[in-house]
């Protein structure tokens, strides 16, 4: 039977030597023989066991699960596979959320300010489109200032309004006379 050194199968499988040593240590894959000087010698049977380990690993099974699968004839049970399917579905949902968050962050970084692509003119247009006239807009500023002065300030700055103008709008909203 053809035999292989640890470096040889590591290279052939794209695994590191230390991974194979680890598999040996945890009893997942022991070389079937050793040379006189103690080097591990793997045969075809070991190689096919390793191929099976890698296949199960790619399907997301843990080393512990793989060990128990191999110890009981090499076929994973339905329950184990279903459990793995369920976990995979959970991970997909998690990854999708991550993707969405990242896309949102990218948009924010790209636009450089918050709430991003909304500027003063756009905002006024939107309020007008909703049927707000100048009087209603003034009432809106008054309400905003009364309920959340900090939020008002932040919102005005986020529209790209200069601080001096924001201060003027806010003082008018508080019913203080303009200058």
């Amino acid at each position, binding site marked *: 039977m053809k035999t292989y050194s640890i470096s040889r199968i590591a290279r052939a499988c794209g695994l590191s030597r230390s991974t194979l040593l680890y598999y040996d240590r945890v009893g997942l894959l022991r070389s079937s023989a050793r040379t006189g000087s103690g080097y591990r010698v793997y045969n075809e049977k070991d190689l096919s066991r390793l191929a099976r380990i890698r296949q199960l690993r790619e399907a997301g099974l843990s080393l512990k699960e793989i060990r128990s699968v191999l110890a009981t004839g090499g076929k994973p049970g339905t329950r184990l596979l279903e459990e793995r399917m369920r976990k995979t579905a959970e991970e997909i949902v998690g990854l999708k959320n991550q993707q969405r968050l990242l896309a*949102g962050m990218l948009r924010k970084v790209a636009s450089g300010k*918050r*709430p*991003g692509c909304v500027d003063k003119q*756009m905002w006024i*247009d939107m309020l007008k489109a909703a049927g707000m006239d100048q009087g209603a807009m003034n009432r*809106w500023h008054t309400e905003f200032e009364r309920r959340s002065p900090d*939020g008002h300030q*932040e919102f005005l700055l986020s529209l790209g309004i200069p601080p001096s103008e924001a201060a003027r709008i806010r003082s008018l909203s508080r019913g203080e006379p303009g200058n």
Partner: protein
Amino acid sequence: MKNNVNVNDWIAMFRDIGLDQAKMKQWHSLFEARHPNGHQSFLEWLGLKPDEIDRIRSAGR
């Protein structure tokens, strides 16, 4: 900078100045039609969760 105005504050302010439910819906549709990106970032700024944002934006389409 942390936003300390949430969506309920916002709705309350719009109500106070006379925007009813139908008007607000119309406003979202217009916002979505004219400035989809602005609509998205405004809703994010209000602290809405991604699925709520999707729901509001698709209702406005």
